[in-house]
């Protein structure tokens, strides 16, 4: 029986796992002041993270 193709969410998880630097930068930005989180905070870091995992997802 051939191996099943990975579920889309698994592919997504692999893509996110490739972006540790961006993910860590975003996480640090949020956690630095986590009592005051609002929409749009740390968006620069998040856009970098998003660009990274989107690119990784397409490549996979």
């Amino acid at each position, binding site marked *: 029986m051939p191996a099943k193709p990975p579920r889309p969410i*698994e592919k997504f*998880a692999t893509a996110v796992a490739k972006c540790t630097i961006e993910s860590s930068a975003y996480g640090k930005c*949020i956690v630095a002041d986590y009592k005051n989180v609002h*929409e749009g905070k740390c968006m620069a870091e998040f856009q970098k993270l998003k660009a990274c995992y989107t690119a990784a997802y397409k490549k996979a």
Partner: protein
Amino acid sequence: MRALSRPCLPKLTASIRSTSKCSTRSYAIQAPGAPTIEIFNRRTKWLQRERAAANVEASRRVDYLRDEVAFRLSERLLDITRRFDHVLDLGANACNIARILTQPDPDPVSEKPVSEPLKTRISQLTAADSSKTLLYRDAAEPFNDEINITRTVLSTEETLPWEANTFDAVLSSLSLHWINDLPSVLAQINNVLKPDAPFLGVMFGGDTLFELRTALQLASMNILGGISPHTSPLADVRDVGGLLQKAGFRLLTVDVDDIIVEYPDIFALMKDLQDMGEQNCLVERRFGGIRRDVLAAADGIYRELHAEEGSQGLPATFRCIYMIGWKEGAGQARPLERGSGMVSIKDVLEGRKNPGPDTEGST
């Protein structure tokens, strides 16, 4: 006291046409049987568990948590030196307790090896669960031949179909946290127990998955601008004692045990929860699941906020609340009356031989 009139009861002398606001009010009466607030969608939960169990391989892979907790619960049975004729396993999942009961050495830590498996003390085990697929998942495994087990599929776990005074013990491992009306179910458990029979249960409580909860909250707050619940509200340790007492149990023991499991990332954690059939089934949940960008954000936040220094994995806490309660029975030990103690616990703990000057007694 008589002088105090209740202002909101219409006075007998008042005319019927009185337009006073008070006269139109009636007592707020609680319907018998307590109102059931539906927190969890039982049908969704049933579907989730059926689907999870249908994938036998994945479902067995995530048995680590249920097996461990079932083991710790069964260990507590060792402390009760009794034979049980008929035991109920309520919310049996994949009959994890039954498997543990057939293990040759139930207490590997003890100095004096316990050679007899626990099953020798149980004549009949009834395993009950609402999810048929999950309940019968391991029905062909060898342990089924070693223990007299009957599987019962319940239409709902919220109403127990058995007669009063049926069981010599009731066990329940990791299923009570999905019950909507916990007080009622506990009272029903008390009802189906024979007098002076124990109930041993364990459920997730309090801080279970607080890491996931906080990470998802921060991420959805940041990305979506608001939060919707993704993890269940759970009973706290202090609630459990009160609930047991309210259900009529005596000689309560409640204790807490944290099991921390490390996962490579948030996706692995959520995949495992899904394979267990333990994912979100709140009535008030947002349909369509969690958005991917929120997931990616939550993964980063989780790692920064909760990961241990120098560790690659994400810790997830499962707080298990163990409870033991006994149905009232004749000849059962009772707590002494309040204020009847003659020895100061302080003296005992400090190892003082001479009791204080205010207590009478010899050396």
